[in-house]
């Protein structure tokens, strides 16, 4: 009797969670993987054809290259700058104002940021007044205006990545700043007493103490950037060699209605994120143990 009742309670507690996991996570995942082996209308089985496209087409190779660029540049700058600011701003009087300003872009959506920065990067021919502030600076410095978003392959990609860095550095800074404050003062002082220089203190005391947080932040940024879509969609739509995986997926799905290809791209993106997630789960378990 008691057992039966317990089962019911188990169903009540686990049931909804299980339902939502299956309906909104498991089912779409399995279905996407199945669709990735079908043709554009999801009617006929086409084997690996969609995956061959994903790994051989010029467009997708560009997208992979750009995603790698995003992961490297975006992650190192958001985490690196975030760390630097967390430590440096801790020592200044106007800390609060500075941190608020740097954190502010976080409150702006990617789409909003894309629109704002499109204005910043705007190009007008040299003979007329510039609209974009960046090109105006270039002119004040005696240069010619630059088409920031069309100059391929590096200028435009880095210009886009910079927008991402602008948004996310504040977030990294806040988390890392909390971790920095959490370092026990005793060990820092002990190092000081032992005659450690600022650099030695940072390298051998601060950095090791913050390592777990830095890794969490870095992993979050990597997952974030693998899925990068909005900035690219709004600012260049992947033209001029700025395509990224997620934007291509959107195009194949909604603009070209090629369900097979879009699903194959989604599957590959999913597989790319899995190792990062596994790493994260493993590390969390280690920490608990």
């Amino acid at each position: 009797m008691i057992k039966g009742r317990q089962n019911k309670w188990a169903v009540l507690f686990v049931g909804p969670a299980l339902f939502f996991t299956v309906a909104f996570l498991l089912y779409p995942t399995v279905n996407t993987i199945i669709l990735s082996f079908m043709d554009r209308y999801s009617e006929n089985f086409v084997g690996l054809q969609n995956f061959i496209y994903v790994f051989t087409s010029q467009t997708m190779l560009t997208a992979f290259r750009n995603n790698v660029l995003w992961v490297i540049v975006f992650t190192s700058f958001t985490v690196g700058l975030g760390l630097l600011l967390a430590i440096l701003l801790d020592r200044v009087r106007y800390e609060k104002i500075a941190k608020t300003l740097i954190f502010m872009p976080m409150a702006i959506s990617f789409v909003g940021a894309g629109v704002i920065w499109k204005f910043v990067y705007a190009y007008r021919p040299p003979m007329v007044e510039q609209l974009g502030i960046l090109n105006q600076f270039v002119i004040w410095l005696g240069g010619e205006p630059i088409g920031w978003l069309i100059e391929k392959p590096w200028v435009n990609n880095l210009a886009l990545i910079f927008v991402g860095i602008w948004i996310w550095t504040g977030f990294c800074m806040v988390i890392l700043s909390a971790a920095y404050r959490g370092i026990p003062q005793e060990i820092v002082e002990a190092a000081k007493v032992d005659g450690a220089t600022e650099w030695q203190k940072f390298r051998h005391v601060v950095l090791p103490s913050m390592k777990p947080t830095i890794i969490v932040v870095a992993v979050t940024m990597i997952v974030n950037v693998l899925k990068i879509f909005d900035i690219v969609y709004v600012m260049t739509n992947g033209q001029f060699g700025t395509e990224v995986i997620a934007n291509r997926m959107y195009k194949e799905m909604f603009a070209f209605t090629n369900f097979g290809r879009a699903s194959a791209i989604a599957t590959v993106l999913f597989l790319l994120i899995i190792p990062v997630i596994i790493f994260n789960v493993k590390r969390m378990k280690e920490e608990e143990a």
Partner: protein
Amino acid sequence: MKKVLSVLVGLCLVMAGSTLYSDVTSAQGQVTVLGVWGGGEEEAFMEMVRPFEEETGIEVLYEGTRDLPTVLTTRVEAGNPPDIVHLTGPGLLMDLLRRDAVVDLRDVLDMDAFTAEYDDTWLDLARGDDDGIYGIFISADLKSLIWYSPPRFEEYGYEIPETWDELMELSDQMVADGIRPWSIGLESGAASGWPGTDWIEDILLRTAGPGVYDEWIFHEIPWTSPEIREAFELFGQIARDPNYVYGGPVAVLTMDFGDAADPLFTDPPRAFMHRQASFITSFIEDRHPDLVPGEDFDFFPFPAINPEHGNPMMGAADMMSMTNDTPEARALIEYLSSAEAQEIWVGKLGKLGVNTEIDPAAYPDDLTRRMAAALHDAPEFRFDASDSMPAAVGSGAFWEGILNYVGGDDLDEVLEYIESVAQETY
């Protein structure tokens, strides 16, 4: 306990269910319409259907989205299509036909009256393989137009060119006078590149003729064929040459198409000519309210290149199709096909009418009336090719190719790329 449980489970199911049915679905006495119009266009549409609502008591629920293909695809796939949908090109219609998601209007409309009011061009564009009529056109935009400022032309002593050679001579004359002949803007957000595809289409229609143009749409000739190469080259002569185009190729790639007519009206002018569709008038009027249509800005037709093919007109049109067969939808589509409805629509927006019964007095000004006449008198009319091709080519690789070509990429590479996409798409 049992009761509590079942109530809870029930609640969960209801919540899950209700999220699936939150889209606008029509009840009795209502008809849902999905379109791309917002702002003034949406107001004009609602004004057009108001007499219908008053007469029939049917309520029209309009939903506008700039991302129509996405929303339409999702709703058709989900089995929840709107009753009537506004399609911006035959490409979208082909996709709906492929999904069997659109209703044949031969059983809906009074076909004798309908065919009497529309030229064959407009019937053929909506015809499926089974001869069914799958849409009606409520208005069109004419694209083969070159805009200029008559006072400026007079000031500099320029004549309207009748042929391509005259056009290029005039361009050289303008260069000699120290002002760029052309202003071109290809930037249009996620749709960047489309104004350039219009150039290629206009040129190809005049160098190779409507026959080759049709073959090109259906990929019966490859993108690497000499006719298409030549069209790109003629366009490139202008768009890639910093002497011919305002701001050089970088400005061509970064200037919003809506801004691209502005250099014609600055003082002094920074460009003299701008090739764009009839709808650019609303942009010009918006930005330069003091300019008088037909006096301060006017158009001349894109000139003939090969005399054999003359001056065919290219454009786009707004098609309405029925994706859900209800009595209310039938009534609305019948109403929308009438001259009475379209007179309100074209009168509000300055679009060009398609129904031959439309009273020319309905147009807001003489300039629009002349454009409508140019559309009706055209020896041949062709729908915008990029809107007629499968999206992966017409609005994918073609846009991309145009941008890369203007950006300086090698023409062979560009055409081979578009051809490779076409081969795997058709």
